[in-house]
């Protein structure tokens, strides 16, 4: 499926007059709001495992989701049929689902189309031969295996996607964005006397194939391989409470879980967040300024418009420890009579939007990162975190450490086996007592909420939490 003149395609996915008709049909049962989200996504992926390129996959996902809001009720239907007939049928289904009171005739006036993009794609992945994509996999495989005979298995994956979205609603919003994402992952297995260990690295950006000019897949593969080799010597992680130093760009997931989800207005609105009712209060160490920013060009969570047609923006959530705002989508902003914040996102046209993060990060402090380690008598140094999850109502959250070391007498010493760390969001935020001056963004993430995954970025400078519970087995 070659995209002809892919990046310069500028015609709309569906004509504006058809959109207006569909939106009017959506309101035909008395609803006060209707919206159509149209997506046309083409993707290419390739995987290598066990030394072989397993297959190249081409994918096409195209369809529309129609949302109708009547009072507190949302009706939603989606279809892969983008003809006028198909869209009107979906609009009727959504309107019936949200039925309330008598109908009426509505006229929808769309604003001129707003095209908003924050990313600059130099080399459209669709213009790159598949053979060049596959070659990346083979280079990564060879590089990882060249490091050490203990590397017994390597898998690598390449993926790109080109997603055109168009959003229109009965308030007149009419916006479009073309979103390109390019992703590369490598994971390795090393085998030693004490069993097997794993290493992993990944990169993902909202730019095109030029991402590989600045990022060498062989270096990534070598990093992953070295991580696995180091872990072969790892000893069991400690059990209990210790100071934890988290390396720059490896621990943004801590904030994603410790407070990011808890600052999503849908959860706050239902009283399911430990941060409800805390606006203007000190919720973190005064060192902490937390920002969610969908405009960070090229970053994995960057979007020109959110999936409700609102331009992305930079939102300060916590400033010097004080809670300054939550994140908002259309429905929750409407309820609170305020502006939405560009955080209404969905996995695909088949899903309802909800409040989601974009790129979430903590800004720089003043400490030299080496001094943070030196100031720590006995603790754990986390060089790479894995995923995490949170119970937003209690604030309890976990995240995994996939590469970690002991800190003894202010020095990084022995590697540790994998384990989870557990903490309570508000407590951990207050316990951040040292913040470095070496800010970096981290690996690309896929955030899951209510069954939907969306790409998110995170970042932070090196920092120390003065006490966290480490879930290892060593006394």
């Amino acid at each position: 499926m070659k995209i002809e003149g892919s990046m310069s395609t500028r015609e709309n996915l569906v004509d504006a007059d058809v959109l207006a008709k569909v939106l009017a049909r959506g309101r035909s049962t008395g609803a006060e709001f209707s919206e159509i989200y149209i997506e046309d996504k083409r993707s290419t992926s390739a995987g290598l495992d066990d030394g072989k390129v397993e297959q190249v996959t081409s994918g096409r996902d195209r369809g529309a989701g129609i949302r109708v809001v009547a009072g507190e009720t949302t009706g939603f239907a989606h279809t892969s049929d983008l003809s006028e007939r198909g869209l009107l049928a979906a609009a009727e289904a959504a309107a019936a689902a949200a039925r309330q009171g008598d109908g009426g005739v509505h006229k929808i006036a769309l604003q001129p189309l707003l095209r908003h993009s924050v990313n600059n794609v130099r080399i459209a992945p669709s213009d790159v031969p598949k053979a060049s994509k596959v070659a990346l996999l083979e280079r990564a495989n060879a590089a990882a295996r060249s490091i050490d005979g203990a590397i017994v298995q390597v898998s690598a994956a390449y993926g790109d996607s080109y997603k055109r979205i168009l959003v229109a609603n009965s308030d007149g919003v009419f916006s479009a964005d073309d979103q390109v994402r390019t992703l590369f992952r490598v994971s390795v297995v090393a085998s030693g006397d004490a069993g097997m260990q794993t290493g992993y690295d990944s990169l993902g950006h909202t730019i095109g194939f030029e991402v590989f000019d600045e990022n060498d897949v062989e270096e990534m593969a070598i990093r992953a391989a070295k991580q696995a080799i180091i872990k072969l010597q790892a000893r069991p992680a400690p059990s209990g409470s210790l100071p934890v130093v988290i390396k720059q760009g490896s621990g943004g997931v801590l904030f994603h879980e410790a407070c990011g989800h808890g600052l999503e207005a849908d959860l706050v609105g239902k009283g399911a967040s430990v941060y409800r009712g805390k606006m203007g209060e000190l919720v973190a160490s005064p060192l902490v300024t937390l920002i969610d920013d969908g405009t960070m060009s090229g970053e994995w969570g960057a979007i020109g418009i959110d999936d409700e047609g609102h331009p992305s923006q930079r939102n300060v959530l916590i400033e010097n420890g004080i809670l300054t705002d939550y994140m908002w989508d259309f429905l929750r902003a409407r309820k609170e009579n305020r502006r939405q914040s560009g955080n209404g996102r969905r996995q695909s046209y088949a899903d309802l939007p909800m409040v989601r993060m974009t790129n979430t990060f903590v800004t720089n402090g003043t400490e030299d990162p080496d001094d943070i380690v030196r100031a720590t008598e006995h603790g754990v140094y986390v060089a790479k975190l894995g995923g995490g999850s949170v119970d937003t109502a209690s604030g309890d959250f976990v995240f995994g450490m996939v590469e970690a070391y002991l800190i003894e007498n202010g020095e990084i010493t022995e590697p540790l086996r994998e384990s989870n760390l557990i903490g309570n969001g508000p407590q951990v935020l207050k316990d951040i007592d040292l913040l470095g001056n070496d800010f970096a963004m981290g690996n690309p993430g896929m955030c899951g909420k209510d069954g939907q995954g969306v790409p998110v970025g995170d970042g932070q400078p090196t920092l120390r939490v003065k006490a966290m519970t480490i879930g290892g087995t060593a006394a």
Partner: protein
Amino acid sequence: MSTSSSNSSSNNIPDLQAIVDRVVAKAGKGEQIEAYVSRGGETAVRVYEGEVEHFVSAQSEGIGIRVIKDGRTGFAYAGTLDAEAIAEVLADARDNVAFGTPDEYAGLAEPDGVAQIPQKFWDDELAAYATADKISLTKELEKLTLGMDSRVRVEESNYDDGWGEVAVATTTGIRESGRGNSCYVSVSTLADDGDETQTGFSFSVGDSPKEFNLPKAAREAADRATRLLGAVKPPSKRTTVVLDPYVTSQFLGVLSSTLNGENVSKGRSFFADKIGETVADPRITLVDDPTNPLAYTATDIDGEGLAARRNVLIENGVLKMFVQSSYSARRTGTKSTGNATRGGFGGTPGVGCLAMQLQPGTQSQEELIKGVDDGVWIQMVQGLHSGVNPISGDFSTGASGMMIRNGAVAEPVREFTIASTLQRMLLDIVAIGGDIDWLPSRAVGLTLVIRDVTMSGQ
């Protein structure tokens, strides 16, 4: 939780069968083709504070085509069944063939003569269930839950149903189609005490809504949240854990990748050279049995269209076999065990357990807890995806639950982890409950007691 069912039965969806037959008929000389199509729909109702918060009604369909030539594989898919798109998908899959590395084991499944075990996957009553009834059922669940305890709020009450039809055909002679439907309700709770809030959940599953047990779901969701009010962080120590059926199901889910024949052949399982050895307590017999109609993920065919079958993976603690697809079987010189998995039309088959079940014991959860002097009853775990590594076996998860002292349930505890290794935990199982719970999951739940696990708290 997926709302669509993997269930199917043979050759009764003529229009989908015709589509895959047409694609397969286009195979050229030396070319193997597999076409897989699916079509499905879902309804999702969410109620909050007595009102419908959302009502989702949707349908989707799509096709995936795999082409294999000279040991190279190419694949493409599209989320539509229009003829032009199907032609494009086939052309893309053919184009992609050139970029695969030749693999002597690449290929499609071939009919193996194993008979399908007929099951009922379609319920007419569910298919005809009225929208208004779905909504009132969801409201009823919210109301029942709120009525259980004045400290309880309901974050969301949900009804979900789905139906699906699939057809698959290959140049090697596979030709299957079928349909299924399923439904469940779920409820998420919040319990408040002053500044403190704790959460709970539960669900109820049935072939049709008349099989739901709403009062039981309401009771569980309320109890899970209120039980944890006042929970403290426990001290760190080695202890015995009693896993709730839902947690056991998650534990088995993690274990499944170690029993996957492809992982074994690619050096990603610590069980690789352990066939015939004792890997678990002798009380443990683990089967994968999608032919059991009580299993939520029961099916008559696997992701490649071969008959699903009952496989005994661990018997009295001894590792007996791994699960295989046709590809992993060719790699390892064995036969497919009917364990190809498939995530829908957008993916190619993988390997996995389809419906895991531990052979149950006889005791109730209450009796098992009575037998524990000093331990912790684990009601929920957090971070299975981040703290468990099925390749190394390292196991560490966040947890919450209740302390057990002298056989009695004591104070609630939270914000701690439990840790061991998967290898150790299998050997350290000391009791298995008889309290089978057919959860909406690939693994059946029951209470499991495991000794010598490290609890990390204060």
